[in-house]
């Protein structure tokens, strides 16, 4: 390259912004950005002016007003005298509840179905194929409505559990004397604490100390068990013999929590029919059950496919090598296949979790009051603040999704292939 000539070092001219390839793409990007911002400014300006014409302003003051409506399922104390902001929080917690339980159930079912679909048992594999294709290819809304209708139509009225004065017996009876499946809800026993630890008030939030104590003890047990297993591994590496740990594990896991529950005086309160409905227990509404079941089954079909893809992505040679080393099939799966498959599984799994969370807004179809039902439904209607409510709702869903995505990305970073 002896005769290569350096580009002439000219001074910068304005025309170079277009004709010089070094600057051209930058110029185009700047122009597009300016156009975009101008368009955005026009839209905002247009909205502001038209809202003014309609005599509407843009403010979130309504959140502090009295909501005035009741919500059937509430995880925190709420009455109709509370504010719209509180109703929003109740709805948000309902959304999060369905999202967390839905993701959990979908993952469990999805992994089982995905693994079974690869089973060498012809019947099991085909059945799982049918399951996946059936749930994946029918719109979610229809599943929700179908499950809800099944619950509503196939189960008895609460009144049928009442003892008839003439015959001396009731038409329907409770399962194990503990549960009652009705066409409105499933009544389950409530867990009551006799000697609670009270709660700690932190501004608008109050933290239930009893709940906190239980969580802390469970977490402590898990940590202790981990230490035990680590110790067992160390012993194994030093001596080649793994000490028996199962009874120690069980003891560590069960004893502390049992002691705590006994100390707190925890007991069950069995629901009983009084008046129109069951009281004394917890009534899990059919809309919640329908939504949870439909969301879990629908999403699990996608997760099953993701799991199957992940397992198939690990080459057959890995299994053969593991077998050649004398590993049993179960340990081959947990030590060799799954760790490698997870690299493929986790990124699309994040998408499914996000989908499930966002799909939970279909709750409105069965009257489950989630965020969409409270903030985007009743609050929006009673206050007439469409723009504010919809923007706030979008913002909250976005925040939830980003949190899920962020958490899963951290997990993904931990399990991905470490290239050194």
């Amino acid at each position: 390259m002896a005769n290569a000539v350096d580009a002439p070092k000219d001074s910068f001219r304005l025309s170079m912004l277009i004709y010089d390839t070094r600057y051209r793409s930058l110029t185009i990007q700047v122009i597009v950005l300016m156009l975009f911002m101008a368009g955005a400014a026009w839209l905002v300006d247009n909205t502001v002016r038209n809202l003014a014409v309609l005599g509407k302003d843009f403010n979130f003051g309504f959140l502090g007003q009295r909501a005035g409506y009741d919500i059937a399922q509430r995880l925190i104390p709420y009455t109709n005298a509370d504010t719209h902001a509180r109703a929003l929080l109740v709805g948000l917690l309902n959304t999060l509840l369905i999202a967390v339980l839905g993701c959990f159930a979908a993952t469990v079912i999805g992994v089982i179905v995905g693994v079974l679909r690869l089973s060498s048992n012809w019947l099991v594999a085909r059945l799982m194929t049918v399951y996946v294709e059936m749930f994946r290819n029918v719109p979610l809304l229809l599943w929700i409505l179908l499950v809800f209708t099944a619950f509503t139509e196939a189960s008895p009225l609460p009144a049928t559990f009442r003892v008839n004065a003439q015959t001396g017996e009731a038409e329907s009876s409770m399962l194990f004397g503990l549960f009652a499946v009705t066409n409105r809800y499933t009544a389950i026993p409530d867990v009551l604490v006799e000697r609670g630890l009270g709660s700690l008030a932190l501004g608008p939030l109050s933290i239930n100390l009893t709940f906190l104590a239980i969580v802390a003890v469970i977490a402590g047990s898990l940590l202790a068990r981990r230490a035990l297993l680590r110790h067992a591994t160390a012993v194994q590496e030093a001596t080649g013999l793994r000490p028996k740990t199962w009874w120690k594990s069980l003891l560590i896991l069960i004893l502390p929590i049992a002691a705590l529950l006994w100390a707190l005086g925890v007991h069950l309160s069995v629901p009983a029919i009084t008046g129109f409905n069951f009281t004394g227990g917890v009534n899990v509404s059919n809309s919640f059950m329908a939504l949870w079941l439909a969301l879990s089954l629908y999403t699990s079909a996608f997760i099953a496919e993701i799991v199957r893809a992940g397992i198939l992505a690990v080459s057959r040679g890995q299994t053969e090598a593991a077998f050649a080393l004398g590993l049993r099939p179960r340990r081959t799966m947990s030590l060799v296949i799954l760790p490698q498959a997870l690299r493929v599984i986790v990124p699309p799994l994040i998408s499914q979790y996000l989908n499930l969370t966002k799909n939970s807004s279909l709750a409105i179809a069965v009257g489950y009051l989630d965020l969409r039902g409270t903030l985007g439904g009743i609050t929006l209607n009673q206050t007439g603040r469409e723009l504010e409510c919809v923007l706030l709702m979008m913002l909250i869903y976005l925040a939830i999704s980003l949190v899920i995505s962020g958490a899963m990305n951290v997990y993904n970073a931990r399990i991905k292939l470490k290239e050194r």
Partner: protein
Amino acid sequence: MTKTVFFGTLTVAGLAAGLASAATLDDVKARGELNCGVNPGLVGFAAPDASGNWTGFDVSLCRAVAAAVLGDPQKVRFVPTTAETRFTALASGEIDLLARNTTWTFSRDTDLSMDFAGVNYYDGQGFMVRQDLGVTSAKELDGATVCIQTGTTTELNLADYFTANGMTYTPVAIQSNAEGEQQYLAGGCDAYTTDISGLASTRAAFADPENHVILPEVISKEPLGPAVRHGDNQWGDIVRWTLNALVAAEEYGVTAANVEDMAANSPNPEIKRLLGTEGELGAMTGLPNDWAKHAIAAGGNYGEIFSATIGEETPIGLARGLNAQWTQGGLLYAQPFR
């Protein structure tokens, strides 16, 4: 991505608001059709019949306004709206007139930027239960499950009523009257609550109406009326005075059958002014002078519409009650045509 969605929403809102600002009368005339927001299916008030023609009490008001403005009661496009979408539909200009069992309240009149053109039905909220439940008063509903349409004033009244009486209930949120009907019949709730006229109308559509009772308590005032957008006073006047014309026509004995005869031969100057044979009342609102004549000819006066759609001879079987003329002890009182 976030920004795109955000501005997308703003665009929709902006476009919607832009549509709403033009003069409604000119729009309706130019279109040759009145867009009327109605209940998607409440027998007696607004429901399409077997051949797809909309009929009902609220529908008749839409037809009367169309007849007054366009001279033809058939030039109406009925837009079914849910309790949730109705105000947005009106504010965005999708409909010119909302005649959908809508309660006139302070905040709707002011904060939601609507104007109510009057009251076409004085109603109140009540409860319907199954006869075999053995309940005779709403005060006995403690602990009951209640079906309630979301986004309505009834939702708030219900909460207030139970709180005031120290009772508890479980709300079942439903989206439409049809869904409420289905839930109630399936036993999804013990009681269904909405305006008593709505309960009567819903019950009339049941296979066994005799097994359901409407409890005697009326827990709220629900003046139902047609609503228009705030700020277009001319259009508001037209709707208000069309309703007044129907009420006044009943008071003066003008019916669909004798309206032509009355216009030509009535010696009463008030009737002459109403029907446009004397004075220039129509021109004052930008309508032809015989606008009220068309409106009355469309479906008759208020009393005729009432008895044909929801009155005691119909399956809905509502008595006139508060909705009788002031001369009969009711609340209907049309302002003078002068």
